[in-house]
């Protein structure tokens, strides 16, 4: 399997504070990978480093074989990386429909209206809310909107920053089910950051475990889940 995304010994810092130290990880084409770890381990920073959002990085980041580290965020996402950011990044004063159209802003083809309809098949609640101001949506609806917005850009790789954050368990199950369907049907690769380790382990084929900015373990989820020290230290089981 070739890697769609590859980080090779990446350091990242916010000004004087170094957050990532030599992170090396890969997301295979069509694969689903989880990035686990405690609060402050550097999960969000890893996603931000990939998109060059407010962090300085050293080391090589490759997407589809091409070096992307140091490129401006706009150019990186245009290569085919969708980022569902921490906090969801909703355009609160704009309508749901405008939010979705913004997700497709980098596209020049004529299939945008059809894609709005197709993506609303995944998230039917968005169809009901189409003309509503996005700031009036509930947290769960905004999370769906954030994923839908990223999908509108037809990315090859989706970066998801804690899609379960603040949501009711039923809703989390639903969102994870949809992510699995999208991964299968559209062969979209995903890199998932999660606090909810158990759910993530069910979903993905590869896990990287971060601790204070370093990758301390990696492997298939069964192996990670079976490792006694890992379980006790990071998975809370």
């Amino acid at each position: 399997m070739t890697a769609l995304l590859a980080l090779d010994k990446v350091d990242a810092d916010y000004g004087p504070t170094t957050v990532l130290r030599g992170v090396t990880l890969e997301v295979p084409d069509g694969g689903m990978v989880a990035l686990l770890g405690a609060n402050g381990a550097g999960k969000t920073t890893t996603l931000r480093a990939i998109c060059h959002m407010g962090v300085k990085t050293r080391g090589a980041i490759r997407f589809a074989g091409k070096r992307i580290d140091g490129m401006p965020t706009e150019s990186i996402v245009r290569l085919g990386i969708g980022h569902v950011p921490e906090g969801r990044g909703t355009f609160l004063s704009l309508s749901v429909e405008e939010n979705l159209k913004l997700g497709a802003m980098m596209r020049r083809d004529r299939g945008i209206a059809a894609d709005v309809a197709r993506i609303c098949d995944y998230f039917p609640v968005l169809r009901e809310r189409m003309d509503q101001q996005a700031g009036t949506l509930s947290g769960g609806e905004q999370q769906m909107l954030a994923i839908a917005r990223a999908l509108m850009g037809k990315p090859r790789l989706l970066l998801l920053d804690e899609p379960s954050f603040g949501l009711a368990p039923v809703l989390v199950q639903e969102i994870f089910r949809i992510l699995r369907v999208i991964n299968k049907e559209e062969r979209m690769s995903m890199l998932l950051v999660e606090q909810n380790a158990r759910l993530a382990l069910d979903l993905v084929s590869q896990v990287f475990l971060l601790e204070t900015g370093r990758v301390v373990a990696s492997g298939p989820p069964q192996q990670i889940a079976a490792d006694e020290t890992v379980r006790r230290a990071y998975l809370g089981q």
Partner: protein
Amino acid sequence: MTVQTFLHQVLSGLADGSLYAAIALALVMIFKATHQVNFAQGEMAMFSTFVAYTLCGAGVPYWIAFLITLAFSFVFGVAVQRTIVQWLTRLPHASELTAVVVFIGLLVVFNGTAGLIWGYTNKEFPSPFDQKAWYGSTYLNPHEVGMIGVTLIVLGIVFAFFRFTRLGLAMRAAAENPQSSRLAGIRVGWMLALGWGLAALLGSIAGMMAAPKLFLDPNLMGGVILYGFAAALLGGIDNPWGAPIGGFIVGVLVNLGGAYVVGSHLQQTLALGVIVAVLVFKPSGLFGRTVVVRV
């Protein structure tokens, strides 16, 4: 006080208000995008008006000179953003006060440069509207009617642009949430520059409409920008719909106040009064919008 003179004051207040409306919208567009107040907005408009003056003096037909001036102003606004404003935002310790000082500096530079090139004597600036046109009346002369008409048409086009085009949507998005916009592949820096270009274009229209009435000199927009600030604050500094309405209200208020209360010499004081009153009693302005947020 007769009904006729009162009506005349109200209507010519609306005509003047159209200038303030255009300038206020220009100020609000930039404020919404970057939370900066462009104190040089009026001087940029004045500079553009001198460009139109030079073109007209060279024999270019009015409306062609008008369009060339719009294009010049747009490019001028984009250039100022891409160079000075962008440099300003990259300064390591820039605060809001730094921006204020830089924009006041720009005001002085544009004012002085215009004086250097064109001198400080009053110049007559042509009106595109025939003095004896049918739409003139005892209440409003044709130029005043034309001012209102041009402003309303331009405001309509600007709002349609923001509401119905992809680029307009991208610009609104970049103003609301730059980070999410970047993640959607929007080139936020250029969106801000386009906003500056559009604001300068709006300002130049106000300048070209003001000049036949006020005569052209480097201090053409000194009063207009003051009323424009009052209008922007009254309408709600972050509400593009409120700005033009604020402009028309300030126009009428200042005209009536000048005619019946304080006299024409103290008219500008009324604008300051409006500014202070808004800041004290309703800082969000008459139409200041609150975004509904559920957490």
